[in-house]
């Protein structure tokens, strides 16, 4: 069952991103780019992927990492992720 992208989902995703990328909540915008704007590294990106999988019970292929450039993109990837 695909994940419904609503406010609750977005709030949870924000929580994951803030934690994994070591950001303050107000720093994270919907379009702020993880690598360029938030200095994320490869481990941080995988941590996000892993946390999304666990939290939402989905499987996200490793190839999607390159698409997960900002919050909006992560939500988009999550919307088409399949249950694990």
């Amino acid at each position, binding site marked *: 069952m695909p994940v419904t992208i609503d406010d609750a989902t977005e709030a949870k995703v924000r929580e994951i991103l803030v934690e*994994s990328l070591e950001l303050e909540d107000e720093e994270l915008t919907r379009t702020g780019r993880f690598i360029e704007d938030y200095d994320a590294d490869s*481990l941080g990106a995988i*941590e996000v992927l*892993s946390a999304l*999988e*666990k939290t939402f*019970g989905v499987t996200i292929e490793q190839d999607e990492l390159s698409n997960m450039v900002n919050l909006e993109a992560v939500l988009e990837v999550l919307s088409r992720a399949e249950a*694990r």
Partner: protein
Amino acid sequence: MSTAPAAQRARGPVITAWSAVSPYGIGRAAFTGGVRAGERTDAPVDPETWRSPDERACLVPDFDVRAVLGKSGTRGMDRVTGLAITTVRELFAEAEAARCPVPAGEGTALVLGTTLGSAQSQHDFVRASYEGEKPYDVPTRQMPYTLMNCPAAATAIRFDLKGPNSTVAGGRMSGILALGYARRLLATGRTERALVGAVEEYSRSRAWIDRHSRRTAEGQPDPRLGEGCAVLLLEPATGEPDADVPDASADPARTPLAELLAIDIRADVRGDPTSTLRESVSQALGDAEVSPEQVWAATSGELPGPLGADERRLLAELFGEPATARGRGHELLGDTAAVSGVFQLTTLLARAAEDTEAADRFAVLTSVDEDGMIASAVLRLLAQDGGS
């Protein structure tokens, strides 16, 4: 400043600085103060924090990695890595304060001894694999911390140490093994200077491993586990002007504290560790051209149990009670396992600094473990400034 005559110039590599993070606290001054006061360090283990089977242990007081090192780059950092980074930070800061800063970069190696790295990080990681919904639901950020080389590698990243970066997994022998390894790096010119040390963390996982592998006799009290990290700066001896690599000699601004003369490491292969140790000590003394009566201090590894007691007896027999009394003290830090050998040495250096008798006399370090590893080292103690 040392003005030793030419005949007494050091030939082996010399220790020119050191620092420690120990149950006495953070930094060299805390360590020296604790050694001189001869304070015990064991304290109740907080059951909430540690969920440990131990009632008491010797912990670095209030050591919280992120509180000590700040939040930047320390999320998820394990204790063993935090201890190593903090110790090197202290060594650099103390050298800076003494106006002879230690250069980083390509000319500086780091050789760090360990038992397993962090048993706790490894334990937690694989436990997550067994208990997660999926077996790959392991904590991503912790992956580097499961590797034994993480403390050394993370310290290099923090301080830009681009020389050889080596992790010596030697258990209790780590200190002497790391010195032997670093001595080869210096002798071959692979580095200009080496930070040499060892690190051990306290953890619940280590407490259980120790409890099950311990071989202390029935009825003996449980040893207190200790933790910490100690790092020495090892540099080539200040050579004669015509030495092969004049640039790679100790910065003349730094006072050599001790000269590393000889190391002997071997294994007991015939079920008689004490005789093997006797041979090892004899070999090291012979290589150093030092006779037992020249030895000012002899320090044993203080392995808990009968084997450690035999080691102490042997040193007392060879060097006399006054010398072994001078070598004691690090046992007050608990069973510090991988870092015990370096704590033996830093304890001696702290003591030699306050005793003018020590200058130009010799120290013997030994260590044994339950697996049959045996190690000895002989050092010459050099006159230190500002000892009192």
